């Protein structure tokens, strides 16, 4: 057995999987894609913040309207109830006067 010849055979050059150069070029192009500038990130952050605040304001306004509607309904119900009590008292008084 000749170890040196065996080593030359065992360590012959082999090719990587097909498309190797393409994979390297893809990585280069990905690395070269320009990073978005700072102003772009600031603008994106502002839009996001505006959307969050806007959503919160809309939600608050809807909540306030719902609260006001509920309050009006309670007042109307109390007013109806009080009118009914007044009519009932009046009828009781009329019966009593007879």
């Amino acid at each position, binding site marked *: 057995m000749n170890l040196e010849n065996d080593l*030359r055979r065992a360590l*012959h050059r*082999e*090719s990587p*999987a097909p498309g*190797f150069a393409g994979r390297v070029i893809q990585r*280069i192009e990905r690395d070269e894609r320009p990073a978005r500038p700072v102003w772009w990130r600031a603008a994106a952050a502002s839009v996001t913040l505006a959307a969050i605040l806007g959503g919160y304001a809309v939600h608050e306004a809807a909540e306030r309207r719902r609260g006001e509607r509920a309050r009006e309904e309670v007042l109307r119900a109390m007013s109806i109830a009080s009118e009914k009590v007044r009519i009932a008292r009046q009828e009781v008084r009329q019966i009593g006067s007879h």
Partner: protein
Amino acid sequence: MTAIMPTAVDLPAALTRAQSGDHDAFAEVIEQHEAMVYSLAYHFFNDRGRAEEIAQDVFLQLYRNLGTIESDAHLLFWLRQVTTRRCIDVTRRSRMKAVSLDDAGELRAAEKKHDALLDRRLKTFIEQLPDIQRAVVTLRYQEDLDPSDICRIVQLPVNTVKSHLHRALQSLRRKLGEHP
């Protein structure tokens, strides 16, 4: 024997175009040298996935340093040196798991005269060598480089390279003898 020292002549057309940012030209340069770079890493790690990863990293590094390449011979020297260094660095950082002797035992049971099996055994035993010996053996027998060429790539005195090579061969002979 391939000349490996940089000389300021013979800059191939593809390399010149690649230096001016032509990706197709750089792909040509890769295709010309991918087998050499990939095989250095593959024979060092005996792992195709890791070899692909390292070879890709080496070519990315080459792309970033294209302006410093002066000739085809310089390119060859640069690729061999960077690939070898990267393999050694990766091994030192991760201390990769060596193939266990149980695997070698399985190999022992198989037909010993079969070339493919002998190749597998040699690759397994090479993988178990210390990293610098692995690099020296791969450069010597894959790239057919003399110790005087290898010493420039691994940046060690030529006698140290010869000594690593001698010890690596002794170790491989011993292992092949222990697991005939």
